[in-house]
C-alpha cells in the first residue's frame, strides 16, 4: 500500500510536467502577435507590438519558451500573472482559500443530501418520493449555472436585497485586513468565528449562500443518481434477496448490507465530483463576482495570460492527483476485490 502511494506521489511531478508541456504545445498554434496581445490592450500601444514580442521573447520556438518557464520555476519563481496583476504565487494565495471555502461548503451538502436522497430514492423506487426527488435533482442538473446564478441574483439581490455578490462587504473587508484580525485557516468563515467576529461571519456566510446554493443544486443530481443506481443494483442482488427472504427488516438490509456495497462507486466518483465542483466554480465565481481561482483561471485563459493559466492549472492538477490518490486508496479499502497497483 505504501509503495502504491509513493508511486502515485512520484507521479505527481510527471503530471505537472506533462500538463505544462501540453499547454505550451497548444500555444504553438498562436502567432507572436497574438501572444503579445496580453501586453498590448490599447490602440495607442499598437506601434510597440514588435518591441513587446522582442522583450518577452515571444518569437522564440515554444519549446524554448517552455524551457525558460521551467528554469524560472526551478528558481522558485512562478512568474507574473498579467490578468491578476500580481505574481502567480501571490495570486494562488489570494484566490485559492476563497475557492476552497466555496467548494468545501458546497461539497458537504452535496455528499450528505446526495447519499441520503439517493438511498431513499432507491428504496422507494418509483414511489412519489423517488419521483419527486429525482425530478428536483434532474431539473437542477439541467440548469446552466449562469442561468440559475443570474436568476438567483435577480431575485435575492435585485428584488429582495438579501444576498449580495462578491465575497464580503466593505466593513468585513476592512475588518479582516485590519491588524487585530488573525488569519488561522485562510477560510474566512472559520477565521471569523475563531476571531469571535459574529457579524463578519454572518456577512461572509451571506455572500456564500447563493454561489453555494447554485453549486449544490446543480451538482447534486450526479451523486444522487450514482447512489440510487448503485443502490438499486445492490438491492437487486441475490444476497439481498436472500436476506429479505430470511425476513431481515428492510432498514437493516439497506444500512448493513446494501449501502456498504452501493457506496463503492459513490466513493470512487466523489473525488471526481469534487474536481467537477472545482471546475464548475469557474462560471459560478464569474456570475457572482467571487474572487476565486476559477474566475482567475478563465480570465487568464481568455486573455492568453500564460503564467496565470499555468498557475491556476497546476494547482488544480495537484488537487486532482491528490483527490485521485485518496479515491484509489478508498477504493481499495472498500472493495477488496480490486488489487491495488
Amino acid at each position, binding site marked *: 500500500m505504501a509503495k502504491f502511494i509513493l508511486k502515485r506521489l512520484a507521479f505527481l511531478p510527471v503530471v505537472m510536467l506533462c500538463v505544462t508541456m501540453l499547454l505550451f504545445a497548444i500555444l504553438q498554434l*498562436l*502567432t507572436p*502577435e*497574438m*501572444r503579445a*496581445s496580453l*501586453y*498590448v*490592450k*490599447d*490602440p*495607442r*500601444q*499598437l*506601434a*510597440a*507590438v514588435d*518591441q*513587446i514580442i*522582442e522583450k518577452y521573447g515571444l518569437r522564440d520556438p515554444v519549446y524554448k519558451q517552455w524551457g525558460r518557464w521551467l528554469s524560472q520555476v526551478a528558481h522558485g519563481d512562478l512568474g*507574473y500573472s*498579467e*490578468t*491578476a*496583476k*500580481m505574481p502567480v504565487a501571490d*495570486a494562488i494565495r*489570494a*484566490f485559492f482559500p*476563497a475557492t476552497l471555502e466555496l467548494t468545501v*461548503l458546497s461539497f*458537504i*451538502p452535496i455528499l*450528505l*443530501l446526495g447519499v441520503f436522497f439517493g438511498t431513499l430514492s432507491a428504496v422507494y423506487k418509483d414511489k412519489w418520493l423517488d419521483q419527486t426527488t429525482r425530478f428536483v435533482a434532474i431539473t437542477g442538473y439541467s440548469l446552466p449555472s449562469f442561468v440559475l446564478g443570474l436568476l438567483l*441574483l435577480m431575485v435575492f*439581490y*435585485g428584488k429582495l*436585497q*438579501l*444576498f*449580495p*455578490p*462578491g465575497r464580503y462587504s*466593505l466593513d468585513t*473587508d*476592512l475588518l479582516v*485586513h485590519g491588524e487585530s484580525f488573525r488569519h488561522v485557516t485562510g477560510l474566512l468563515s472559520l477565521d471569523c468565528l475563531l476571531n469571535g467576529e459574529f*457579524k463578519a461571519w*454572518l*456577512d461572509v*456566510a*451571506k455572500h*456564500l*449562500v447563493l454561489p453555494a446554493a447554485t453549486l449544490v443544486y446543480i451538482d447534486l443530481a450526479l451523486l444522487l443518481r450514482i447512489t440510487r443506481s448503485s443502490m438499486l443494483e445492490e438491492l437487486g442482488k441475490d444476497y439481498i434477496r436472500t436476506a429479505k427472504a430470511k425476513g431481515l427488516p428492510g432498514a437493516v438490509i439497506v444500512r448493513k448490507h446494501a449501502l456498504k456495497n452501493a457506496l463503492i462507486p459513490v466513493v470512487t466518483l466523489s473525488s471526481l465530483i469534487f474536481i467537477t465542483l472545482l471546475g464548475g466554480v469557474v462560471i459560478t465565481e*464569474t*456570475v457572482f*463576482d467571487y*474572487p476565486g481561482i476559477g474566475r482567475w483561471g478563465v480570465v487568464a485563459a481568455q*486573455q492568453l495570460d500564460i503564467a496565470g493559466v499555468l498557475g491556476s492549472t497546476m494547482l488544480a492538477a495537484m488537487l486532482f492527483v491528490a483527490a485521485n490518490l485518496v479515491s484509489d486508496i478508498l477504493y481499495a479499502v472498500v472493495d477488496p476485490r480490486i488489487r491495488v497497483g
Partner: protein
Amino acid sequence: MSMKKISLLLVLGLCCPTSLKAKAFDPETFTYLTFSDADSLDPAWSYDTASHAIILNVYEPLFWFHETSTEKLDPLIAAKVPSKANGLISPDGRTYTIPIRKGIKFHDGTPMTPEDVRYSIVRFLLFDRNAGPSSLLMQPILGYPSTRDESGKLKPDCWKDAMKAVEVKGDTLVLHIPKPYAPLLTLLASWAPALSKQWVVKNGGWDGSEATWAAFNNPKKESSPLHEKTNGTGPFKVERWDRATKQFILLRNDAYWRKPARLKRVIVKSVDDANARKLELAAGDADNIYADRPVYTQVSNIPGVDIIDDLPMMEMNPVAFFTFKINAAGNPYVGSGKLDGQGIPPDFFSDVDVRKGFAYSMDYAGFIRDVSRGKGTQATGCIPKSLPGYNPKQPVYSLDPKKAEEHFRKAFAGQVWDNGFTFTLTYNTANTPRQMLGQMLKRRVESLNPKFRIDVRPIDWPAFLDGQRNSKLPIFLLGWNADYPDPHNFAFPMVHSQGDYPHNQHYANAKADKLIDQALYETDIVKRKQLYAQVQAIEYDDVPHLVIQDTVRFRTQRDWVKGWYHNPIFPDAPYASYFYPMYKEQRKP
C-alpha cells in the same frame, strides 16, 4: 452536523435582511464601480486609463486643468504656469522656467523638493518601457521618441541628454527643449507626476545615476517596486490595492498641502457585470458607476440617481480604417485575393473611388439615432469638437446611394461594379457600437449591387492585433482616445504616415505629413487651427478612414454626490473622478 450548520446559516441569513438594506448613509465614504482593471500604479509604467484614474488622485503633476477647461492650466506642484507673457517661457519658445511650490509633503511626511520633480521627469523619460507612455514626453523634451534604436539597442547618450534638458536652478525647474512644442504644458499636466526620489531609491528603484539607468530602462512590470506601492503628494493615499477583489481603498491625506479633501475614504472597485453595478447603485451602496450608452434605459429613472448627459469627450470612436495594401498571404479575410467577385485584390482600398463608395454608403445620422440613442453629432474629421482645430465648416460625407454607386462604378475602371467583391470586415469582440457600424455598412453596400458581399465578423483581441499588425484586415474598426488635450494627438496617429494607424494601413500623404509636423511646432493658436483645417480637408479628400461621430457620454451617480465636474481629459471620464473637490450630502427629506 454540517447540514445543520448550513441550514442554520440559511436561517440566520434570512432572518437578518436588514443589515443589507438599511445601511446608514455614509457621507465620508465614496464608492465608484468601474469596469476595467488597473494595470500598475507606477506613473512611468501605466498607460491605461483605469490606472491613471487612481494615479490622478494620489500623485500630482506640475499643472492641472482649470476645472472643466482643457486649455487653461492652473499650477499644482508648480507655483506658476509659465507663459511668454510672464517671461517664464523664453522668446524662442525653447526654455521653460517652472518655479516649484514650497511646503508640499509626500504621504510619508518628507518634503518635496525641486530635485524630486526633476528626478521624476527624468525617470519618466528614461524608464521608457515598451508600449508605455514615456515617448509622449521624450519627443518634446529630448527630440526623439525612444531611448532605444530600431534594433532595440540603448542609445548611449540618453541620460546625458536628459540631464541637459531637465535641470534644477534654485527653486525652479528649467526645461531646455530642442524645438518649440505646442502641447508641452498640457503634457506636463497629465504625465510625470512628482515622486520622492529618496523613497524610490529606498524601495529599490533607480538612484538617478548614469551608471544604473540602463539597468532600469524598459523593465518587466513585476520588477518595479512602484507598481503597487505609492507615495505621492496628492489628496488621497492608497490604503490598499486588493487585486483579488479588484478594488482600491483610498484614504484622505490629512496632511495635504491644500485643504484636505472632504471625502474620507474612496473605494474604486471593478465589477464586470453591468447588472451588479446597477443593483449596487440602486441600493445606494455605490455612489457612481460605469454605465454606457447601450444600457441607458436601464439606469435611467432609478429613484435617487442622477444622469448627467451630453458630456463632451476627447475621443474618436468608432472609426472604420481602410488598409491600402493588404497582406494577402494566408489571409482569410480577402476571399480569392482577386477582383473576380469572390475576393478583393491587395490594393483594393488604394482606389479612392472604392473608399468614397463606402463613405457615401454609411448612414451617419442613422448610427447616431439608433446606436447612440440620438446623442452626439457627426464628426467632421479626426479632431473632436472639444479640441482647438475642430472645424465645423468642414464638409462631411452623408448617406447617398446615388453618389456611392457613381464612385463604385468608377472604381478600378468599372471592374468593381461588373465583377463585384467579397471580403470580411472585422471588429473586436464585444464592442457593440463597432459591431453595429459594421452591419450598417454591410447592409448599405450590399444593397447597391447584388455582387457586393461583405461578411461582418467579430474577432477576439489577439487575432485582431495579429491581423491589424500584419495589415491583413481589409477594413478594421477601432477608435482613439486622447493622451493629452491637443489636436496633434489626433491628427498624427490618424493621418500622419508615421502615425499609429496609417503606418499599418500603408496610407501616406506627404502634404498632410508636412502640415501636421508644421502645426506641432507652431505656437500661434490661430495659425495652428488653419493648418489643422487643411489637414482635415486632405483627410476628407483622401478618405483613409471613416469617422462617424463626436461622442458624448453620460455619468450615472447618486443625487447626494456633490462637487463633481466633468473634464474630458480625465482618464475614464466621465465615469471616474478627481475626488478632491467632491463630497456627499443628503437632501433633506
